[in-house]
């Protein structure tokens, strides 16, 4: 028992678990909209595109959230600009722009060594998180939750039916920018926990898992938040014993949850569909002899 509680004896582990849980919750919340809007690639893109901003911010001694936000926005604008001016498909544009940004970030960090290492940005380093970073994260988390709490109706309608959203007076451009901003901000917050490479998992997997488990948006949101929080906290906790990467632990746990849902979800799971399919076959088989019997006189 004492052995299991050891992580809680260290302040840095307490912080890591608590911060991971908060980030997991926010990412889980946002992941519902990412899944419903079909924005996983965009999430992946933004989480990589913020890297040069983070690097520059550290070099210049600015809050890293600011740098990340500016560079994420620049990437989104650039994608829009290229897309509007070329016949190239959106996924190709996104793929090119975000890797370019990521490459620029990697270059910046390698050329101008600062107190942030490439490894920290790419793979995260929740155990070594500074108090000032925790502060920035908590602010981002609070703002994101507040915005979603106030605007979930608009965002839901926007994801469901953009035409109708426009007709009732919502501004789709504004909502797009809002979602992009939240995505960029959350990516920043998750950067130190799981790193730029794995952020997208936290922004997609909880929502995708919840999507398999329920048909109601409210439940989906609750499930995704619960899953995000738990997997992040438990992942951070387990990483102590495994002496391995926190981000890796969290994401593997999330994938495990997803696999469970994929197989055993009551309605959309593979097992459930098999059972349903078998029941149908049996039903048909049960009907067949009767059908043959009735067809005999004819």
């Amino acid at each position, binding site marked *: 028992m004492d052995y299991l509680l050891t992580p809680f004896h260290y302040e840095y582990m307490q912080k890591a678990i608590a911060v991971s849980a908060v980030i997991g919750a926010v990412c889980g919340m946002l992941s519902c909209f990412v899944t419903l809007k079909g924005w996983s690639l965009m999430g992946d893109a933004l989480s990589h595109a913020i890297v040069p901003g983070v690097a520059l911010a550290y070099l210049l001694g600015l809050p890293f959230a600011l740098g990340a936000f500016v560079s994420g926005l620049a990437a989104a604008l650039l994608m829009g600009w290229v897309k509007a001016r070329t016949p190239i498909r959106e996924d190709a544009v996104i793929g090119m722009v975000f890797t370019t940004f990521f490459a620029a970030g990697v270059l910046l960090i390698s050329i101008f060594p600062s107190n942030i290492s490439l490894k920290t940005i790419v793979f995260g380093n929740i155990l070594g998180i500074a108090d000032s970073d925790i502060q920035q994260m908590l602010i981002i988390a609070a703002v994101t939750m507040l915005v979603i709490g106030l605007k979930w109706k608009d965002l839901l309608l926007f994801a469901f039916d953009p035409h*109708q959203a426009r007709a009732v007076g919502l501004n789709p451009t504004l909502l797009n920018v809002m979602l992009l901003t939240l995505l960029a901000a959350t990516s920043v917050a998750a950067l130190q926990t799981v790193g730029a490479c794995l952020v997208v998992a936290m922004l997609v997997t909880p929502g995708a898992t919840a999507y398999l488990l329920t048909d109601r948006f409210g439940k989906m949101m609750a499930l995704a938040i619960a899953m995000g929080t738990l997997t992040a906290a438990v992942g951070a906790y387990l990483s102590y014993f495994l002496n391995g990467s926190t981000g890796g632990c969290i994401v593997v746990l999330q994938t495990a949850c997803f696999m469970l849902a994929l197989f055993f979800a009551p309605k959309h799971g593979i097992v459930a569909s098999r059972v349903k399919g078998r029941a149908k076959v049996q039903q048909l088989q049960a009907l067949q002899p009767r059908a043959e019997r009735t067809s005999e006189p004819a």
Partner: protein
Amino acid sequence: MSTQAAAPAAVPGAQNAGGTPVIEVRGVEFAYEKGGQALSGVNFTVREGEFLGLIGPNGGGKTTLLKIVLGLLVPQKGSVLVLGRDPRALGADRRLIGYVPQDSGVRKHFPATVLDVVLMGTYSSLGLFRRPGAKEREAALAAIRHVGMEGLEGRMAGGLSGGQQQRVAIARALVARPKLLLLDEPTSGLDTGGQAQLFDLLERLRKEYGLTVVMVSHDVTALAHFAEHLACLNKSLHWHDRSELISEEVLRKVYACELDAFFIKHREHLQEFHGDHAPAGHAHGPHCDHDHGHDHGHGH
């Protein structure tokens, strides 16, 4: 120029007796930045409780006109009044304009039931902090009953048929208690049975609530049945009152806009579908054969 066009006698629909004007469009010119002129010199008035059918070739400006009435686009010239006000300045009263978009195709597994979708119609009147409550629920259930979907409120919206989804979209518009209902090609995804049901529903809503309806559709036959006025839009607008719509001959004559490939194709399509109920068969009045949708009569 536009002042002359605005003279009441010259404006289609303006001289019709009846209720207060719901839509007043005067001398509207609209051009897209890239696509050139979309609307030119468009004038008309729709009064309370009327049903205007809007037809015309693809690219003729139908959807553009709807967007202008919704206040989503601003004409370069002319004026638009909806319920006596600038549609862009309706604010919270924007809910008075119900809109049923062209493609109400819901993604199959979107986690929303019929009730959830209809409740979305109440969002705009809820403000930032409120969630839909008992009052909204009741209104939504009433709207679901109105469109004949009672008992289906718990079904997943994405799993419904095209006609049912169309009804849900109408219920979502109705739940905000609109005075004006704009429908953009609502019949395109429906079979003839579904179309007939839709028109019956609109007729009922118009009679019971004095709802004003503007429908964009390619279904000239059905519109000729149910719409009081038909407007053909091909950059400019040609207005026809229903009394004129008695035969294909007249249809041909009054559609001053070009009977391009669309119309010819459409006529073939109609004859194929309606057989002996082809346009000429509508001569005997507006409500002659409601059953054309329920039963093609081909089997006889």
